[in-house]
């Protein structure tokens, strides 16, 4: 099940690069992550049928969409993939209502009753329906574009940096909609991004791309805590995902979250006790100590055991630790790693300041 991509493509001209991408996207959100120019958009365009790769095969749920050698080359309109572009691409001559209806006109079968209203409500675009795209803000346009793609009843949603053109406030406004989409709509999503925060928040599967190749692919928590994948993902953005459950809200503005290795106190969040979360802990916000620290302002001190160490070419080192059942990454200096005698098997205390976990680092877990 899911999407299976195995393609090769060349771009001519000076500085032209070749793409060689092979990965599977199971149901859920698969994030294609990588720097600009690593070939992410090319892959999505090939999946959508807007570009024919030189070689290879693309299949969705067992149906071959494209096979360069002998098989079919389905036209984009026959693939039934909803594509949300970076620049919304709403039709300027149509009202928002007509833009949304456009997708539904060509969808096979009958619309489920109330589907239009449900999508409009989920995306919060009801009051805008009679406006033209020219009169909408960037965030509103992007939400409308998501709605239009959804209403075409796609077998899969393709999203190419749908938040890249937006400022932080708009991103924070749309991210919860995308989470709801992932958890409620049940449509698999191929999500292109070069922003780690979005990937950490949404992805169930991560495909890290580097210079036209797949550097690492796998379940999100596994890839994001992988030492070898870190350079491809960007050391500055390195950080592991911890699954947790909201335990309690405290009167002093903190929320207590239970993770497999203990309890975390995080800035107050709006989530009922029992809500399952995924928390991104940035590697550079983690302090390591060989003895249990005392008299520290940091509230979160978790016991862990070093699993792996990756010494960089500069002054840095990345440490992978097992905390409870989950993996955590810590980015420290080589000097500290040597001084603390960090090696696999070493017991360590991981110190995380509550305020180092931003609200955008906390997302809802799937299912």
């Amino acid at each position, binding site marked *: 099940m899911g999407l299976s991509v195995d393609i090769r493509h060349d771009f001519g001209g000076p500085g032209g690069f070749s793409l060689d991408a092979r990965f599977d996207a199971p149901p859920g959100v698969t994030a294609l992550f990588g720097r600009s120019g690593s070939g992410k958009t090319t892959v999505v365009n090939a999946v959508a049928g*807007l570009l024919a790769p030189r070689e290879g095969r693309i299949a969705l749920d067992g149906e071959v969409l494209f096979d360069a050698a002998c098989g079919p080359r389905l036209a*984009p309109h026959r693939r039934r993939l909803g*594509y949300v*572009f970076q620049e919304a691409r709403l039709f300027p001559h149509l009202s928002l209502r007509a833009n949304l209806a456009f997708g539904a*006109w*060509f969808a096979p079968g009958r619309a489920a009753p109330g589907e239009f209203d449900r999508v409009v409500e989920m995306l919060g675009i009801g009051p805008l329906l009679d406006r033209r*795209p020219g009169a909408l803000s960037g965030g509103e346009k992007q939400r409308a574009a998501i709605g239009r793609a959804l209403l*075409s009843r796609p077998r899969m949603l393709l999203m190419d940096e749908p938040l890249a053109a937006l400022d932080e406030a708009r991103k924070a406004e749309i991210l919860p909609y995308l989470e709801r989409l992932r958890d409620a709509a049940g449509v698999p999503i191929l999500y292109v991004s070069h922003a780690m925060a979005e990937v950490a928040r949404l992805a169930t599967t991560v495909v890290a791309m580097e210079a036209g190749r797949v550097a690492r692919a796998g379940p999100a928590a596994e890839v994001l805590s992988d030492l070898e994948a870190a350079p491809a993902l960007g050391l500055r953005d390195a950080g592991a995902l911890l699954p947790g459950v909201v335990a309690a809200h405290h009167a002093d503005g903190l929320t207590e979250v239970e993770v497999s290795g203990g309890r975390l106190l995080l800035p107050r969040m709006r989530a009922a006790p029992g809500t399952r979360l995924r928390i991104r802990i940035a590697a550079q916000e983690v302090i390591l100590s060989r003895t249990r620290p005392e008299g520290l302002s940091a509230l979160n001190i978790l016991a862990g055991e070093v699993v792996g160490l990756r010494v960089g070419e500069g002054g840095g080192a990345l440490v992978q630790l097992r905390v409870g059942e989950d993996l955590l990454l810590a980015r420290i200096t080589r000097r500290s790693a040597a001084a603390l005698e960090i090696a696999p098997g070493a017991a360590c205390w991981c110190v995380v300041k509550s305020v180092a976990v931003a609200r955008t680092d906390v997302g809802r877990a799937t299912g």
Partner: protein
Amino acid sequence: MQDGGVWLDPATREALALSLKVALWSTLCALPPAVGVALLLARVRFPGRALLNGVVHLPLVLPPVATGYLLLMLFGRRGPVGGWLEETFGLVLAFRWTGAALAAAVMAFPLMVRAIRLAIEAVDPKLEAAAATLGAPRWAVFGLVTLPLILPGVLAGAVLGFARAMGEFGATITFVSSIPGETRTLPAAIYALLQSPGGEDAALVLVAISVAVSMAALLVSEALASRVARRIGAG
């Protein structure tokens, strides 16, 4: 002849009505192929594209008399196309108003193609790609996205072509002559009046009518284009 007021002059009314009929038919018939050729030139890379471009634009630079003579050779009753049309459909073009419409259409064609092609080149192909990913087949993409977006250009091209057809003289008079009531359009009537002694006053009236019709066409085209542009707004 002029004592009863020139407005009532049947010859004048005849020339005006004929000109309007010829220009209207030539515009209506030339518009769809003009859209097709503009699409072809703007979007498709094919061998012979430069040649097609040249042929389309030829009437713009060729002396109209030469164009008219070529039409006569091709579409005359003994011409290869004209003979076939008469045999198959019983359609005669030479020295008929239909021939005048053909001549006007040929002369107006390059102007229409140019205006429409500009509009097509201004359409963002990304919007068409988006429509395709939403499940729209090619015809629907054209009808629901491309055509509405190029509508201002198509209208501008149509009005421009209409005005050009109204003023067509050289190719028309060569191909279909200047037969009162059949092929004597406004410009041909003005020319005929100026050839006869004492015809200047009547010619002046026809010139005034020409100015009025052309001016009205331009104003209408401007208004239509800006209305459509406003409706579409900044996307």
